[in-house]
């Protein structure tokens, strides 16, 4: 459906457009949480303003597999949350052309007292799926996660590996136009890693955009066709995977070794 206002034909297959995006938030800090300090600061706590994203411009096109890299606190997760519509931007504009899987790594398991099954359903329903859609996918999710009967026990009894396996299975089984996988690639044992890696490869298609946040450089080199490097809220470099990852690793002053490639 061509619309009159959008005549820009050159960006036909665009999935996400991020323009001059800025994100700041303030957090309260408690330097010395004593009663005296509390009384002194009563009514006005000390706050710190964090600039999580600073003038970020980024386009993601359909058919692209974009890896997002950066050190801890670089703003990777914040960027993903803005694209998913969870955090409102402070400046700029984000346009999303398609359905986004908002089931990020930790979206499942919001209530640890409930069973894995309940959490999958609740997470899916909250994300706007219908019960039928989830039921349709549920077997596949359960199979892929290899949880077996544990799917019906409370999630507080899960190991962190089981937790991550379920989260990844949900994100990778629902097939949205735009899939965001945040830090979920390098979880689980070697076998599951391999499996999830293969699933990501399967999910690559011309009518889907994938955005992967990960520290597993080896994986990113292999699956992505584009890498964005964020540092302290700014987009440092964007381009061909090997070039950007090499630059990033040089920046970190670490050499190229197998260990670094796998988990940085």
């Amino acid at each position, binding site marked *: *459906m*061509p*619309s009159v*206002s*959008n*005549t*820009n*034909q050159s*960006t*036909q297959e*665009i999935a996400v*457009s991020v323009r001059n995006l800025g994100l700041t*938030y303030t957090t309260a800090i408690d330097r010395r949480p004593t009663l005296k300090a509390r009384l002194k600061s009563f009514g006005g706590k000390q706050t710190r303003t964090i600039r999580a994203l600073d003038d970020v411009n980024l386009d993601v096109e359909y058919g692209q597999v974009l890896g997002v890299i950066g050190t801890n606190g670089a703003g990777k997760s914040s960027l993903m*949350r*803005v694209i*998913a*519509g*969870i*955090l*409102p*931007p*402070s*400046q*700029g*504009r*984000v*346009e*999303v*052309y*398609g*359905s*986004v899987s*908002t*089931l*990020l*790594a*930790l*979206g499942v*398991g*919001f*209530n640890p*007292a*409930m069973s894995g099954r*309940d959490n999958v*359903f*609740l*997470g899916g*329903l*909250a*994300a*706007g799926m*219908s*019960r039928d859609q989830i039921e349709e996918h549920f077997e596949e999710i359960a199979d892929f996660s290899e949880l077996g009967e544990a799917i019906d026990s*409370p999630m507080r009894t899960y190991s962190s590996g089981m937790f991550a396996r379920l989260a990844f299975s949900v994100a990778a089984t629902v097939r949205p136009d735009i899939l965001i996988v945040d830090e979920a690639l390098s979880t689980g044992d070697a076998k599951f890693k391999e499996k999830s890696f293969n699933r990501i490869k399967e999910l690559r298609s011309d009518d889907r955009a994938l955005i992967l946040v990960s520290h597993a450089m080896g994986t990113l080199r292999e699956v992505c066709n584009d890498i964005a490097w964020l540092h302290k809220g700014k987009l440092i470099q964007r381009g061909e995977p090997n070039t950007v990852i090499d630059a990033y690793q040089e920046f970190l002053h670490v050499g190229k070794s197998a260990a670094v490639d796998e988990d940085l």
Partner: protein
Amino acid sequence: MSAPLQVYEPFRAGLPPLGRYWKSLWARRTFISQYSKSELREQHFDSVFGQLWLVLNPLLLSAVYFLLIVIIGGSTDSTRYGHLTASLFLFYLVSNSLTGGVKSVTAGQRLILNTAFPRIMLPISATIIALFKFLPTLLVFLVMRTIIGLPFGWEMLWAVPVFFIAILFSLGVAITISCVNVYFRDIASFLPYLTRTLLYLSPILYEASSLSPKLRAMEVFNPLFPILDSWSKAVVHSEVPATSSMLQGLAWAVGIFLVGTYFFLSREREFAVRL
């Protein structure tokens, strides 16, 4: 090229587009029912009787008051016992809604940080859970009032509008307090004292008509007073509740619901950075 499905821009304080918000909320109504069901199941997950507790709770509660009023107190007035249980059950609807609502947003942190959805679903679910706990108590009360021989009459139908006023009120307080708790976490610690005070200030352990005119003046400040008074009139005495009480209750309920919802909707977009 099609228009963007979603556009995210800095938000100014104020309400989000209500039409779209409502559509997105309506599309997720199954979440609310599923959440309530799972939550109720989970609350009694480890107990032997499981969800039977939903009926056992009101039964035991009324048994305790039977012991207190009829056996120990030696009262032969069945109206008094009926009034107490009926009012207490409705009071629990409101107080369960409050205690469930207060942490509904802060406890949903994981979901809020990872999924985009209308946040108001969380306090609404808390009220629905309170409602699910209330419905069996209604049944218990109906059986009990037959046994103790309270009068039946068409006037009891007035309980229906009173019930809806109480639901709207519960919803309003749940929405309000869940939002307040995001900014002022201390409210959760104050809450037990608040509900306890509300319990004593409301005509539950006594009848509204037995209060001195001077004490009745406080009725104006307690939203639960007119609601509970009307409720007792209808379901216990089988009388038509005073129009003024009904209107007063309705005004409170609509007022709190509107103010709370406005407050919540204009704030909810920043919950993700406040948790």
